[in-house]
């Protein structure tokens, strides 16, 4: 957790966006390690694959499209206001966690709603050794369907926004005969 805090501070301070995207990958990897410590292997797996892997690659792709250096546009007053808002929100969130039950508390509400049924009956009702899978794909299959739609929508959105531009550019390139220097540029 301390390492994560240090990385977060570094991300806020560093202006080189390449280093920032690398650090955010490391941040996700540390988060994945924490999930492993908390015995949530499935979540850790996802965090390592998505947070540390794919998002870093996507951020690097975005950097290749835009620029490597952060621009310091806003004035002092604006950044102070932003800092105040962030601190207030963070304080409220931390205040909210005071009401949460302690980690591993037996009488916490989350252990008394549907979790006992999932854990106890999953073997006879679904027959999967991995309860996480049976919850995700069977008990909560509507939620997972929604998730799949979210990912589908994300890809469709990216295609709708950027796919058209790429196609137009390709047509331009085909119209262009001498386009060899442009290709070296793209890498």
């Amino acid at each position, binding site marked *: 957790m301390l390492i994560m805090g240090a990385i977060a501070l570094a991300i806020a301070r560093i202006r080189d966006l390449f280093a920032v995207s690398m650090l955010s990958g490391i941040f996700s990897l540390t988060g994945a390690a924490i999930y492993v410590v908390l015995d949530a292997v499935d979540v850790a797996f996802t965090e390592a694959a998505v947070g540390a892997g794919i998002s870093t690659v996507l951020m690097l792709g975005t950097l290749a499209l835009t620029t490597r250096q952060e621009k310091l546009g806003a004035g002092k007053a604006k950044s102070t206001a932003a800092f105040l808002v962030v601190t207030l929100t963070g304080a409220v969130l931390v205040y909210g966690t005071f009401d949460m039950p302690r980690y591993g508390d037996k009488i916490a509400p989350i252990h008394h709603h549907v979790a006992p049924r999932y854990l106890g009956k999953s073997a006879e*009702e679904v*027959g999967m050794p*991995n309860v996480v899978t049976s919850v995700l794909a069977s008990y909560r299959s509507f939620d997972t369907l929604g998730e799949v739609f979210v990912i589908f929508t994300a890809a469709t959105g*990216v*295609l709708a926004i950027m796919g058209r531009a*790429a196609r137009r550019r390709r047509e331009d390139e085909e119209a262009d005969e001498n386009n060899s220097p442009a290709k070296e*540029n793209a890498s």
Partner: protein
Amino acid sequence: MMHRKVVLRVVSKFLIPPILLFALYVQFHGDFGPGGGFQAGVIFGAGFILYAILFGVETVKKVLPPWATRLLLVVGVLTYGLTGVAGLLLGGNYLDYNVLAHDPLHGQHYGILIVELGVGITVAASMITIFNVFAGHRGRG
């Protein structure tokens, strides 16, 4: 393109088949160990993305043309959705796997397997699509 980095190219050529194989393992072993369609899709996509980073998006497009990823995107979502419809047609609720086979447990097993496959296909296809669109885009630099 990185034609000069021999070490990177050779090592990644060694690594990509295990990555894809591991993705399939995660996909179909998700019932027993950690993992499932989502993680498998991401890992599968990562294999292709690694290839695209090293050898260029155009080379990947020869293996997996854009129309194929777009088709897979839709196929994945439809696999999931139509599994639910199959449950409806066989007399259950939407996404009720118990009716898919004679034994409810087997039905659950088939249902989860198919649904996870749909999730994996969608995730892998969308990761590859998003990366290809981003990387194929010529930036200002």
